[in-house]
């Protein structure tokens, strides 16, 4: 009992410190590292709640792939310069955000505590958690029988995401600087681009090639 409490308190502290660090870090790289801290804290809480498979997937996918993607983008684009946190483009936005945050926390916490009291315990709508099998087996049984259609649709979604990312981020064919073959009819056509660290080709916008 005491171990559970200590684990929860430590994990909660790690999560909250990481979250505050993400929001208030000036350097985006620091924000990404604080996000990793939060994700590990959440994984620990998943383990504490007997969701072992999700804890492993959380570490592998979230902390191991998504945050790495963030860091790749930050490093490749060289945008790790500190942001000026002092300027406020919209007047009064920061105090309004603070008020909204406090009100939301209060409201959500109230709802959460009330929800635990009124949980009717509609037990086992799909499958009981502790069906005597391991967490992975119970999860797999539900995923591949009741939710198999959604599972297949998510695989299609992943393919769409990969194709979309490749199309959006690919470098278009470099054109000779003296002969711009594309007409300047597209609105979002940049003229010159200084070196962006990855090449010295002048490039046009990809939309003009796709049109």
């Amino acid at each position: 009992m005491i171990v559970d409490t200590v684990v929860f308190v430590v994990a909660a502290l790690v999560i909250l410190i990481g979250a505050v660090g993400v929001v208030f870090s000036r350097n985006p790289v620091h924000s990404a590292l604080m996000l990793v801290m939060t994700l590990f804290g959440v994984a620990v809480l998943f383990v504490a709640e007997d969701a072992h498979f999700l804890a492993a997937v959380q570490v592998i996918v979230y902390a191991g792939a998504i945050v790495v993607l963030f860091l790749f983008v930050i490093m490749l684009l060289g945008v790790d310069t500190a942001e000026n946190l002092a300027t406020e483009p919209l007047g009064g936005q920061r105090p309004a955000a603070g008020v909204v945050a406090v009100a939301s926390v209060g409201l959500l916490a109230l709802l959460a505590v009330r929800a635990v009291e009124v949980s009717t315990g509609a037990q086992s709508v799909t499958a009981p958690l502790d069906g005597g099998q391991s967490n992975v087996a119970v999860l797999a049984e539900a995923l591949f029988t009741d939710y198999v259609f959604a599972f297949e649709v998510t695989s299609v979604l992943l393919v769409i995401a990969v194709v979309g990312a490749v199309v959006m981020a690919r470098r278009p064919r470099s054109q000779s600087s003296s002969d711009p073959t594309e007409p300047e009819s597209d609105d979002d056509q940049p003229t010159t681009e200084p070196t962006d660290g990855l090449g010295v080709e002048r490039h046009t916008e990809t939309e003009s090639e796709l049109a």
Partner: protein
Amino acid sequence: MAVDQSWYLVLGALLFTIGAGGLLIRRNPLVMFMCVELMLNAVNLTFVTFSRILNDVAGQVVVFFVLVVAAAEVVVGLGIIVAILRRRPTATADDVSMLRG
């Protein structure tokens, strides 16, 4: 003192509002994206907690799908951010205010 289930939900609520507040305050698109990830994690934590309270595995299945969709969303969103920041490395969320770019 045993850990009450509602503590997890309150922690999820706190994490969600920290992410939401960060999304409102920050202007760097990458950090805003990270705040969205914070909110998704809060929701995941809440789902798993309710799955345990109600003794139903459906909550964990939902978290599985949320993880998959979050990964796809990050891929596409970072593609967009790369496309924007490649042209204007100092762009903030306020600068991308017109569809013309």
